[in-house]
């Protein structure tokens, strides 16, 4: 248990620092790179929670694709390289309020949902939690219990994809 705790705190601190870096950085590319650290940290947290599959999905989708698209977009359109753009604006107060509000909502939600229930990861390999993190279990629930929401989300994403293409096409 000690090891997990130590790792959790190391990751958590790193993530928080990187997250501050994301919003504090004056350089868009730096901000995106900080975001990579945050996302990698959350992938590691997933591993700590025995959700391996989700962790690697996080790596593949968020780091491997989303961030790369971010960087791609930034470099293609702005490419500031030398001069740091002034990304600052006077909405710090509003931002802080929203952040606090979000923190409150999420905390309340999590505490209400899980309370102080403990996660037992010292159990045998077949323990419920470890099983829940397996790809098979996940696939079963997605394609049986949650098949409708899953398909709905797919359609939503497809629609937005088509919309983006339509908007961006020049000819």
């Amino acid at each position, binding site marked *: 248990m000690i090891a997990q705790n130590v790792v959790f705190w190391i990751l958590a601190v790193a993530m928080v620092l990187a997250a501050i870096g994301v919003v504090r950085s004056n350089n868009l590319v730096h901000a995106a790179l900080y975001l990579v650290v945050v996302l990698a940290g959350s992938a590691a947290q997933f591993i700590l929670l025995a959700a391996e599959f989700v962790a690697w999905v996080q790596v593949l989708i968020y780091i491997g694709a989303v961030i790369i698209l971010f960087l791609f977009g930034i470099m*293609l*359109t702005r490419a500031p*390289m*030398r001069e740091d753009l002034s990304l600052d604006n006077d909405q710090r107060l509003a931002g802080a309020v929203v952040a606090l509000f979000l923190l409150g909502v999420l905390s309340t939600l999590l505490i209400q949902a899980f309370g102080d229930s403990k996660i037992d990861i010292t159990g045998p390999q077949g323990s419920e939690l470890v099983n829940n993190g397996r790809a098979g279990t996940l696939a079963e629930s997605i394609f049986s219990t949650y098949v409708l929401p899953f398909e709905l989300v797919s359609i939503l994403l497809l629609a937005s994809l088509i919309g983006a293409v339509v908007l*961006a096409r*020049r000819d």
Partner: protein
Amino acid sequence: MTTTQPPSQLPGFEVEPGSLNPLADARLAVELDTGDMILNMGPQHPATHGTLRLVVRLDGERVIAADPVIGYMHRGYEKLTEFRTYPQITTLINRIDWLSSFANEVPFIHAAEQLMGIEAPQRAQHIRTLLTELSRIATIYLFLGEMGLQVGALTPAFWGFRDREHVLNLIEGATGGRFHPNFNRIGGVKDDLPWGWIVECRAAMKRILDGCDDFEDVLVGNEIFQARTRGVGIIPAELGAAYGVSGANLRASGVDWDLRRDGKPYLSYNELDFKVWTHQDGDSFARYWVRLQETRESVRMVLQLLDGLASGPVMAKVPRIIKVPAGEVWVETENPLGQMGYYVVSKGAIGPFRVKIRSASFSNVSILPWLLRGLYVPDVVTVLGSLYFILGDIDR
């Protein structure tokens, strides 16, 4: 580093209004405008064969405007020739298109001979023709390999260098110089061919023919090579001619014009049987294909010459100090890169009064601003490669 300059800031970069964002929805166009990038290709860039500099304005990877900047290798030959005697000038003009140095000498020597009323003996003419064709093979064979490099295939380039070596050995064997033979004299050539040269020449020609087959397999028949070169950089025949594009570049556009056959007779070409290859497409692939066939045709010519090599002296009687009578003459020849010509104005002295050097690459490259518009950066490289220029031939 990345500058997003407004279009009008660079000379020659004026772009027609409306060509940037052909979008009806102006608001969207503003939002999606990614800004242009000015990219300096060269003067040190592997695709520019030396010190050509291309200033290209890019939208993404699409070229909006391209402006070749030349002159990094300008050596002022037209001025220098006014301060040299006729025999000395051959050392200079050797270095115009340094890959086919021997072919550069021919039209100039021919011009001086015409003004003086001298004709070289037949054997000298045959040797000149032989060496001209050999330097053509050496030049174009390098292109055949190097074109692979331009599209990313490394191996053909090495093959090109490998087989070309045999041709250079032949030129060295005959003239003593691999690159700059300086072998032509007014009235003939410096020496006769050495013993055993003809046998070696036949062997080398066999290698060149085999090598051409290899190129045909590896590049011409390759789908990727065709995808990269077909339909890319099309030069319309009329426009190409009006730009002064010559040689294989123009023949690839379907213009059946070869000075060896159609120009005023020079060397021994009217004794030879050869075919002038043309291609209708005018794209990069056509230029490659035409050059490939021309190499084979050159080999055929060399073999014919070896079979029918005339005997006799290699020098005509010429005065010890060469004075060229007053007059003007324009001599043009079909060089490996295209039309090479000298307009020689003599006032009766031992050196020319004015020599206008018309080099092929200068005009071939002058079409680039028109040709590159709308292409992608990788196509710029294939088009540059397929036009095949030598920097010394542009800058002189």
